[in-house]
């Protein structure tokens, strides 16, 4: 599997470390249920999926990679910074 790092260009997954679903957002509230949901519950979709990937053996940027969990086709990769700024705070 190859990922096109916005900083480094196309690199294979051996240079990356994955950290699961990028869609849950760290709650601002003190609501325990919101936190439980954020920490523990996952949609875990079959198909298109936004996933945190750390270019740990490269530029060390955290990326959000959009990928199909069934075909492993990689559609896009953006930096986690842009992704976070894009969606703003919950």
């Amino acid at each position, binding site marked *: *599997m190859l990922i096109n790092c916005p900083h480094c260009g196309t690199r294979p997954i051996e240079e990356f470390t994955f950290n699961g679903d990028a869609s849950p957002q760290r709650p601002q509230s003190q609501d325990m249920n919101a936190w439980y949901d954020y*920490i523990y519950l996952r949609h875990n979709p079959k198909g298109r999926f936004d996933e945190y990937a*750390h270019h*740990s053996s490269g530029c060390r940027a955290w990326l959000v990679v959009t990928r199909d969990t069934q075909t492993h086709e990689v559609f896009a990769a953006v930096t986690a910074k842009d992704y976070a700024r894009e969606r703003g705070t919950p």
Partner: protein
Amino acid sequence: MTGFRLDKGGLIDRTTTLNFSFDGKVFTGFQGDTLASALIANNVHLMGRSFKYHRPRGVISAGSSEPNALVTLREGGRQEANTRATMVELYDGLAARSQNRWPSLNFDVGAVNSLASHMFVAGFYYKTFMWPKSFWEKIYEPLIRRAAGLGHASKEADPDKYEKAYAHCDLLIIGSGPTGLMAALTAARAGVRIILADESAALGGSLLNENEEIDSVSGLDWALAALSELRSLPNVTLMPRTTVFGWYDGNVFGAVERVNDHVAEPSPYEPRQRYTRIFARRAVMATGAEERPIVFGGNDVPGVMLASAMRTYANRYAAAAGKSIVVFTNNDSGKRTASDLRRAGVHVEAIIDSRKTAHLIVDVKGGKRVTGVELGNHRSIPCDAVAMSGGWSPIVNLMCHRGAKPLWNESIAGFVPPDVGSAFVAAGSAAGHMLLSECLADGARAGTMKGRVPAVPKCRDERFAVTPLWWVKESTGKAFVDYQNDATAKDLPLAAREGYRDIELAKRYTTAGMATDQGKLGNVNAIAILADATGRTMDQVGTTTFRPYYTPVSFGALAGPFVRHHFQPVRKTPLHDWAYELGATFVEAGLWMRSSWFPMDGEDWLAAATREVLATRSGVGICDVSTLGKIDVQGPDATEFLNRLYCNTFSTLAAGRARYGLMLREDGIVFDDGTTSRLAEDHFLMTTTTANAARVMAHMEFCHQAHWPDLDVQYVSVTEQWGQMAIAGPKARATLQKIVDDITLDDTSFPYLAARPVSILGGMQARLFRISFSGEHAYELAVPADYGSMVARAVMQAGQEFGITPYGVEALSIMRIEKGHVAGGELNGTTTAGDLGLGKMMSTKKDYVGRMMAQREGLQDPNRQCVVGIRPYDPKGKIRSGAHILNKGDAASMAADQGYISSVAWSPMLEMWVGLALVANGRSRHGEIVKLFDGIRNTLTYGVICDPVHYDRENIKLHA
């Protein structure tokens, strides 16, 4: 023809004779032979024994699909089992041994199995061996295991080297037959970067084996010309002896090059094999087609082989499979076989073409060598070899490695590759084109990256037409579908009858297709027979799942150079040389090598560590602590960042001071700890535990980039920039005073938790921290790494008058346990700040990672196991880490479990064993006597729970 080596022809070099042996018997062959062709030329056909029935078996194919002719090569650490004789290039002195037979290939006791073969049908194992219960493991299974398996693997280390590599190209072409060559020529001439890989020793594919005509020269000459043109081009990489074994996500291909398997021993500078990950923008699967056996009685008797293989042995290796041949075919290649063999001077006794006669072969006569065949009409024909052709299967494997299934094509009677997009296309016979002209045209098409497809050379076409014949049902002899696993035609209907109708279930029940050839020859026949037995079409039954590896790959190739002590890189500290000079014993700590203790004449680790502790606590000691993670954190928002990462507050930390910090995971469990110093208003130096350094860094990057991208903070690991040493003990200050320039280390100018740049040894910029893990009056001195050992020596010099002693991680750990400081044993990923007695550190005034989830009932439960001290009830007694703690009166059971001992040490100061433990509600149980259950070491003793701080609870020495 004299003997079985043809007088002329073939791509062998008759001027270079090679000696080799098979089962100790010595033979000769020629350069260019394979082991199989050389044996055939010596009229040796019995090359192996089958898996279950131990039937005599000869070579079936001339390539990598060979199921029968598996041999063991080489000796000792180089011994290699199950090697296909058809793929072994002959070299002088080659010694091959047959397998799966006892006492000898010729006389194999295991063959008695075939007497009971009527009982040994598919699934037989599952129905029996159940009574009496105990017999399975004691009797049946050991017998089965000994009978099963093929060759013996070595238990010695392999002396040869292996390499890994990456390769990149615009176009990868897999297969160098007419299709592959045409594709390569087309692409190469267009100037794109290509790689042409072929598993065979020589490039050219079937053009080396068959009599073809292209551009009015022989197919062979055309191929040689094409290859020399390709060789001359800078954008072309040719990879013979290279098997592309798998297709992976992102159009990454795995390939193994047999760099030196064709020589007795590789040069010391070269690898035996090289594994390459090929990143291809586009790839062409020009892997050709595989001829199929026909399933008929005795189709496994040595001397029965694929027609194309028999042609290949004659044309390419000048070896005759026999003197008198019967050809059995369901397609046009019968004619071609006969003419090639006749041209080679081999007598063709009969051609039995199932499309022309109803009287098919029902049995093959002969045990270890064909003596004749018997037809349905009871007519028998004497012969010493049978050439069979059951049609052709495109080699679709690679294209199916990512889940796509091939499709049945009626007109060629074979499965053709699925469409998997333009990045990987099939061409030539692999795509179902059986005519040479089609292959050339298809190759040119596949090799064209853009623009129009160039014209291709004219060629002569052999007719191709096939009418399926799968199984001669009237067969009287055993008819095999999967040779190596001894799956017969009858096994499949049986599996279906018993409910294993799905092809995947039938495969598992009969093991057809599960041998080392992965059913390259047998699977399509199996599918057809199952379809017939269950009244389904080929498409309805479908194929089993194609998986890597196209052919089996050695562990060595995939491990590459990362074996034995090179398995993982070694990481050495800046003080390594210094510690080494002093005779330190080193221990692995992750990838680091750390000085563990410094034995003096004959001391064991405990004696050494004890001495080191005593010397440190009474005088001064020096210890390498360079492995602690060090992260430079800077920027206007550095303080805010640390406040959010740590559960305690850092905004209140003054410049020039250090503070102990505790980090939680977002789930509220303790993650890591360490002291962080404020070097300037906007500049911190964070330290982490050795074990978590990398994870903490990744965690910071995650929190910053994913949660708080707008914080103006910069951080980078400076772990390797600094050699860091702890200088501890009553004389630490006096020692250091001698090497620091112009500063007095008293409590006012350099108090506890001071952290400042200092100049030492007359001008070296260093950093000094007054922090202590040992509980002594102690400092940590950080110096630029290249000076590390030198400074350590200087400190030793300075401390000499105080009897300074180097100490290692063993002594370090003894001292931290004496002081009740938590470390790895307690920071185990399941403990909370409260469990560690650090609950008070959790700020209530700010948000930080882990704050919310730490409030869950289960993490607040007063009955949680928390850190206490533990000592043996009998002061002379011993306690051990890992022992569990039970209430004094309770019998041993998990229900009564109160916790366990997480760390222990022999305390030189208290002269007894002391430890730390995690005990339910432990803080309120100091003084309680408990049972210490260490059943795994057969001891049951008593202990006393106490305060975790065993030594100098008042911290008098720390502040002394």
